[in-house]
């Protein structure tokens, strides 16, 4: 690991000021991805600004929903009583991610900021436009079993690896951000971005900004929620495809549906067209299959990940069946 200077801060303002002072500085929270990237030489900040002492680890009820502090640990959020009661989808997604040790370290904000696990991104000897713009994409014509089928560009087909973010996208969360110019909020679905011509940018956070909290509005989806993650082993692996499904069902009919997929795009992939297909329809396998077909419009595979064109719709149907209680 390259040398760096370490600064410990305990307020929002000093954190933001510390980053503004040093162009190569980065915030350090749980470190589970950042330290790994630094060991691999993918990222080499000359200063780490440790924000773990900031008072941003609480989960609290607001008038309209729950607010989760950016420094709340993944393990704490996953087992929090308020989260389990109101947003079981989020709890399930978090518990499906990483390992118990990593969940004890990783934070909500850090989970959002984690980089892709594309092997071409991690291996300095191989080309990657995300790591080194203009160098080319090794995954396009290479080993791309884990890669995206939606929203890809000529420059990058990497996927965002988070489970938590899939649930937060489906739950219509918003992100509270503080920066040198004050605070702002953005819809969770607009936090991460597609690669386009600038795959080096994972998200819309501006340089020097700090994630403060995530707000999730109350809904009526808690009784019919399921996160289904398909992976190469039963636990502790990144998703090939994952689906977060949450339904409001009354008298056998779907009043409202939320669907998002992981492992298929550069950002958590919200399935708005499929949601529209589900709305107002009976909660049957036939309806779920139609929704899955709608969800797959525009999908494109790259050889190694051709199987995802079949796996993804099947996973959508299975997640909806379990969520609706019609297994």
């Amino acid at each position, binding site marked *: 690991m390259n*040398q760096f*200077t370490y*600064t*410990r*801060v305990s307020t929002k303002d000093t954190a933001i000021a510390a980053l503004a002072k040093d162009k190569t500085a980065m915030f350090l929270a749980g470190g589970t991805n950042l*330290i790994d990237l630094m060991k691999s030489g993918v990222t080499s900040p000359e200063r780490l600004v*440790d924000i773990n002492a900031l008072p941003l680890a609480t989960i609290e009820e607001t008038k309209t929903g729950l607010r989760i502090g950016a420094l709340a640990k993944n393990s704490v959020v996953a087992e929090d009583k308020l989260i389990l009661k109101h947003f079981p989808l989020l709890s399930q997604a978090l518990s499906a991610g*990483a390992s118990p040790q990593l969940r004890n370290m990783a934070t909500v904000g850090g989970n959002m900021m984690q980089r892709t696990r594309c092997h071409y991104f991690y291996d300095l000897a191989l080309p990657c436009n995300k790591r080194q713009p203009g160098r080319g994409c090794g995954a396009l014509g290479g080993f791309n079993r884990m890669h995206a089928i939606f929203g890809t560009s000529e420059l990058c087909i990497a996927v965002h690896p988070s489970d938590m973010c899939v649930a937060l996208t489906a739950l219509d969360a918003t992100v509270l951000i503080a920066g040198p110019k004050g605070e702002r909020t953005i819809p969770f679905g607009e936090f991460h971005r597609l690669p386009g011509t600038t795959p080096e940018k994972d998200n819309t956070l501006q340089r020097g900004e700090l994630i403060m909290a995530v707000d999730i509005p109350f809904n009526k989806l808690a009784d019919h929620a399921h996160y289904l993650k398909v992976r190469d082993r039963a636990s502790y692996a990144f998703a090939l495809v994952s689906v977060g499904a949450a339904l409001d069902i009354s008298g056998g009919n779907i009043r409202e549906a939320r669907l998002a997929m992981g492992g298929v795009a550069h950002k958590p992939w919200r399935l708005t067209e499929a949601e529209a297909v589900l709305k107002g329809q009976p909660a049957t396998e036939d309806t779920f299959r139609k929704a899955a077909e709608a969800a797959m419009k525009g999908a494109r595979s790259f050889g190694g990940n051709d199987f995802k064109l079949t796996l993804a719709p099947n996973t959508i149907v299975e997640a909806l069946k379990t969520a609706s209680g019609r297994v």
Partner: protein
Amino acid sequence: MSDQLKNAEEYTSGTSRRSFLKQSSLITAIALAPNAVVKAAEEGLDEKIAAAIEQMPLNVTINGVKQNLKIEPRVTLLDLLRERLQLTGTKKGCDHGQCGACTVHIDGQRVNSCLTLAVTTEGKQVTTIEGLAHGEELHPMQQAFLDHDGFQCGYCTPGQIMSAVCCIREGHADSPEEIREYMSGNICRCGAYSNIVDAIMDVKQGGKKV
């Protein structure tokens, strides 16, 4: 906020060290050195030399023993334990948070020490496999791993045991399936998993305090 934290507030590594070096190297340069060295000092090269070796104070309690150390910010907790404190029971497997061999407890929570910068453990309690037994009396989980042959080569065992203790403490050891899920962060290449699950079930059902 604790006093310790208050004192540490807005603390930046190497500040005092750096200014000390700057002053001392200037004095040395003036006293001994050819003009080139004086010039180098004036140009701030000593800043770079200082940055390359800057050390941070670290006060951390490891297995009940208070340690007052000076370390580089880039040292991981795993390397501090093994290379500086000779606590080699904690193993380095992948060094990337994928195998769990480096699992230790920080303030009672299991974590990967390979992804933990040692400087971030300021003021905390760290427990390693060496701190689990009471003198000659093994911790119930250590005894259970022996009783059930919960290992072959033994390299992953310290991490497995540290993780297993927390698996029970967290309340995730009620069935073999649950144990397998909540022990998934610890890889055993010998494949001793079934015996490891037996050992954890045994401790859980035995009801001894872990």
